[in-house]
């Protein structure tokens, strides 16, 4: 005879089930709220009612100061440049309120973030894959190697502000690179390095041993084997891990605060006197810009536009970068699957 579940047991079962279900729904709810809030409020800044439906000015212009004033009973909202042009035609004195960064656009921030992501991922992938190859293919399991692994795990737990200060101390001050792209690249690169090393090592280990032996048995050297018959198959996995790295690199504010980010800069990154100066210039960046416009300037009804607009563009940029790496990974996977 098989006993039927008791009433109490069934009730308990229900409770547990709903607990799990609600936990999942809660995540969904939060995500939806955040995306909708940013999407709707930011959408007002980024999209327009008339053609071309996208606020090109916001996407292609540098930030400017907004001037708000009453003129003949009409409320005027003019950007810095427009205000100066207006003043040349209208000679009278107006009492204008200025709101920093709330006019114009965020083009330099988009460019700066893109440059930071590209540079720091290059640094992180190069060092990370090299280290992963060493750990998975060359090193033997000694006490020293175990110590290295623990160090990597610990590095992953270091708060990003500490990376920022470390980068400031080492790259900005000691190396004398100042607040620059190069300092930012290395600081951000070091921050995501543990994740990249760990994931790359796992991807390398997932490549069947038989492929290594098959290659070595044909008279390939170890490096030939790794380059032609191990690394290509591990790349999709490595790229997957780098997607998460990209989101982190693009999103962190603390590490670039002292090392790479400017609150405001008039020149674009390519406007440098000599090409080597390119690496030694600070840039504006989306996360830092959000930080500046939402905490460093007085808040009023005019600042929301740029805050939400920047956040919205920021989300889209990160999604686009992630999408690119996903597509790249799928292409790799299709070509080399076993």
């Amino acid at each position: 005879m098989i006993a039927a579940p008791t009433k109490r047991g069934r009730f308990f079962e229900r409770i547990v089930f709903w607990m799990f279900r609600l936990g999942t729904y809660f995540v969904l709810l939060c995500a939806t709220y955040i995306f909708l809030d940013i999407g709707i409020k930011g959408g007002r800044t980024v999209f327009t009612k008339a053609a071309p439906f996208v606020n090109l000015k916001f996407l292609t212009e540098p930030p400017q100061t907004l001037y708000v004033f009453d003129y003949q009973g009409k409320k005027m909202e003019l950007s810095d440049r427009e205000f100066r042009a207006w003043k040349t035609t209208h000679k009278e004195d107006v009492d204008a309120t200025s709101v920093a960064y709330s006019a114009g656009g965020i083009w330099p921030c988009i460019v700066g973030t893109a440059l930071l992501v590209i540079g720091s991922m290059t640094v992180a992938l190069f060092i990370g894959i090299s280290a992963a190859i060493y750990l998975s293919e060359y090193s033997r399991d000694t006490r020293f190697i175990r110590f290295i692994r623990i160090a990597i795990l610990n590095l992953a737990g270091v708060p990003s502000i500490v990376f920022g200060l470390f980068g400031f101390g080492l790259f900005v001050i000691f190396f004398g690179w100042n607040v620059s792209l190069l300092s930012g690249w290395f600081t951000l690169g070091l921050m995501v390095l543990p994740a990249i090393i760990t994931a790359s090592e796992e991807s390398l280990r997932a490549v069947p041993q038989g492929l290594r032996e098959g290659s070595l048995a044909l008279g390939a050297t170890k490096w030939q084997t790794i380059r032609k018959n191990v690394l290509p198959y591990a790349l999709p996995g490595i790229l997957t891990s780098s997607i998460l790295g990209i989101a982190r690199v693009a999103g962190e504010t603390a590490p670039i605060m002292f090392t790479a980010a400017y609150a405001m800069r008039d020149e674009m990154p390519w406007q440098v006197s000599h090409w080597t100066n390119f690496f030694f210039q600070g840039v504006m960046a989306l996360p830092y810009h959000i930080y500046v416009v939402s905490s460093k300037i007085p808040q009023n009804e005019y600042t929301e536009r740029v805050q939400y607009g920047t956040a919205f563009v920021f989300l889209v940029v990160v999604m686009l970068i992630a999408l690119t790496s996903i597509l790249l990974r799928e292409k790799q996977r299709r070509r080399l699957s076993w």
Partner: protein
Amino acid sequence: MVSLIEMPQTLPQQLPRQNDRPADETDEATIMIDVRDVDFAYGSNQVLYNVSLDIPAQAVTAFIGPSGCGKTTLLRCINRMNDLIENARITRGTIHLGGIDINAAQVDVVDLRRRVGMVFQKSNPFPKSIYENISYGLRIAGVKKKSRIDEAVEKSLRGAALWDEVKDRLDTNALGLSGGQQQRLCIARAIAVGPDIILMDEPCSALDPIATAKIEELIQELKTQYTIVIVTHNMQQAGRVSDFTGFFYLGRLIEFGATTKIFTNPAEKRTEDYITGRFG
């Protein structure tokens, strides 16, 4: 660095075919691989004890014995595949190949492996096209000329009796082949680099009887050109394909001799017991 290729001792093309002669003339056969007093250990775990045998050129030598008796370990010693395993090493004795001690410091292991091909138990085609699989060994050896590679690909695939089945789809992924075809591809890949010796580690263990028969037939053809050492669990297979057989038990070589003799009139009782299926 001593190159095996330059060694006058290894001249397989000019060696007589062993299988033309009565099989028990072992002592007169040209010896390709000379294994002398070999002890082998994984760390502190010794798996081979005092193994000595002479593997004749251009013949098929089979290693038989129950699981864990060390036959695969010995096979992997011949192309130094055991170098890949941490703490695994030959603790005593030598292996000479055409008169050269393969474990000598001046022997280039890459060169050795080019001369001693290997076919693994689990077929391991690279997840690339059939063409790229075969050309892999040549490419890494620095062959760049397309016509030479094309020629070698066709020759090796013909040599492995696979050409007719795959000639129209050389660009397709090798993983799309059947198990038997994959194993023949691995054989073709091994012979593409022009080795003198082919080591086979239970090449048919994952194959059905028809695919197995094809491989066995292929081995018979290959031995006219190559020295073949095959590890097998299947005694019938050893009886069918090999000219010489070594019986291993618990890390020791119990008996080595012409296959006909081992199978019909073994000197050792344990060999007879194993072959007749009384244990193992």
